[in-house]
């Protein structure tokens, strides 16, 4: 299930990060220390980390929208 969430998150990040999306996602996963069996809480921490990165790239307005979308993806997945 986590692979499906990962794919969905990368797909969601792609419009802002383009082809950098995969690298950016992997970097943030490593940054928050996501394990092999991540929980929903882990994914929420990941979404927060991605929000911070988006804020740096595009400002708080865009980052908040991305974060809301990420939460929808994460909460739609398994715990």
């Amino acid at each position, binding site marked *: 299930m986590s692979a499906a969430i990962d794919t969905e998150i990368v797909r969601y990040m792609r419009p802002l990060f383009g082809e*950098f999306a995969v690298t950016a996602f992997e970097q943030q996963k490593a940054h928050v220390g996501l394990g092999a069996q991540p929980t929903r809480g882990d994914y929420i921490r990941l979404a927060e980390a991605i929000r911070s990165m988006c804020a740096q790239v595009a400002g708080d307005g865009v980052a908040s929208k991305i974060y809301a979308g990420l939460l929808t993806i994460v909460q739609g997945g398994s715990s």
Partner: protein
Amino acid sequence: MNEALEVRPVATTRIRTWVRNLDEEMEGGIPHGSVVLVCGRPGALKSSLTYYIMYMQALQEERRSAYLTLEQSRASFVRHLAHLGLTPEASDEVAILDVASLRKTFGDAAPKGGANWLSAILEQAASYKQLLGCEILSIDSMSALYSLHDFHNPRRELFHFFEGLRSLGVTVFLISEMYDPTKEIFARYEVEDFLADGVIHLKVDRTGGQSNLYLGIVKMRETRHSRDYFPLIVDENGFEIVPH
């Protein structure tokens, strides 16, 4: 007259610059969908003027824009704008996208590897148009883009780049630095002004110990415009040209 041969003027949607007195000098503004070079020497307020146009478009006409900064960080640019009385954080209608920080984080290789940054920027611009619903896009600067891209045939590659920008269906501002104070070379490869639909030139006159700014519309397709250079005033009320 034969109806088939009758020429009907096509109404052109125009992007007002909101620079006081300037739009009157070019039939109300820049034709929407144009690719416009904003050129000048360092300190000529190219970035500030471009952002101002986008900011005023958001404020007055609710048009969304994306400003891609390739060299200066977003935080630094926002601080600079605040000095001019512009508050980017007050509105998300103009998204400042910090491609510079992506470069710092992920390196200068183009996103798909190699160094085809012209294609990479076109793809990103198309994405931003969709993601943000923007109608205006600016790229700051051409020099920064050129420093990333490996050119093999500049004339051909730039032709396709400009065509790609035009096909986005948004109004594009390309910020171009001029280096030689003795010549009017508007961009590095000297073809960009032919490929662009419009050229706005910001000139700094530093004679007599003073520094005065002038704005000239060198070129604007589909538009009757003045070719004079006008004094440019920047104050707390915004940008203004002084008509003759």
